[in-house]
């Protein structure tokens, strides 16, 4: 079975400062990991994914995440927050060959002007 822990359900950042969203996972097998973003009243959009290639993954809108197997982590970062980054972010894990994904509870990000 796989699971994801996202601490800090609400995160406030000032515009122009770095964003860090933490994700720790548990998986019995080699995991695939994803970050999704959800803007208000919208569906989920894929930001980036890790599938056993490079451990540093770059996504859309300037986000990136680093897979660290020793720490079972997949933290999401962005050097400089923009107002449009205000949204909810979900870390997701899946074991290879498993068609079910396990979602974290999400981080609600507020960007302060």
């Amino acid at each position: 079975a796989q699971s994801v822990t996202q601490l800090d359900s609400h995160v406030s950042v000032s515009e122009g400062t770095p964003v860090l969203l933490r994700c720790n996972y548990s998986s019995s097998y080699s995991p695939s990991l994803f970050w999704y973003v959800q803007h208000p009243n919208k569906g989920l959009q894929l930001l980036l994914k890790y599938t056993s290639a490079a451990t540093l993954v770059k996504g859309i809108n300037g986000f990136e995440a680093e897979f660290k197997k020793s720490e079972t982590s997949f933290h999401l970062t962005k050097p400089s927050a923009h107002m449009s980054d205000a949204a909810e972010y979900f870390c997701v894990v899946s074991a290879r060959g498993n068609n079910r994904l396990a979602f974290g509870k999400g981080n609600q990000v507020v960007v302060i002007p």
Partner: protein
Amino acid sequence: DVKVTQSSRYLVKRTGEKVFLECVQDMDHENMFWYRQDPGLGLRLIYFSYDVKMKEKGDIPEGYSVSREKKERFSLILESASTNQTSMYLCASSPGTDPSFYGYTFGSGTRLTVV
């Protein structure tokens, strides 16, 4: 780009009504999923289907059923709507080859209110 289309963005239904939520995808994906999303609870899997006429229960199937008569369409049915089914419903699809590699593509969601 894959598109997953949910027929309604907002729905208001009365308690006891039979409710159909429709989802259509246009990229020939084998797998389709229905989730509900509630504040503080995240996304919870209701049902999924990995082929036409196939379905499997997710984590919270009670009070719901599904139908998949065609590959592109996956319907969620609330047999007798209740107020505790007020929620955001999200449909998703993924390729059958290795969905853990591709992730899911989500629709925009249907916000259902049962009064």
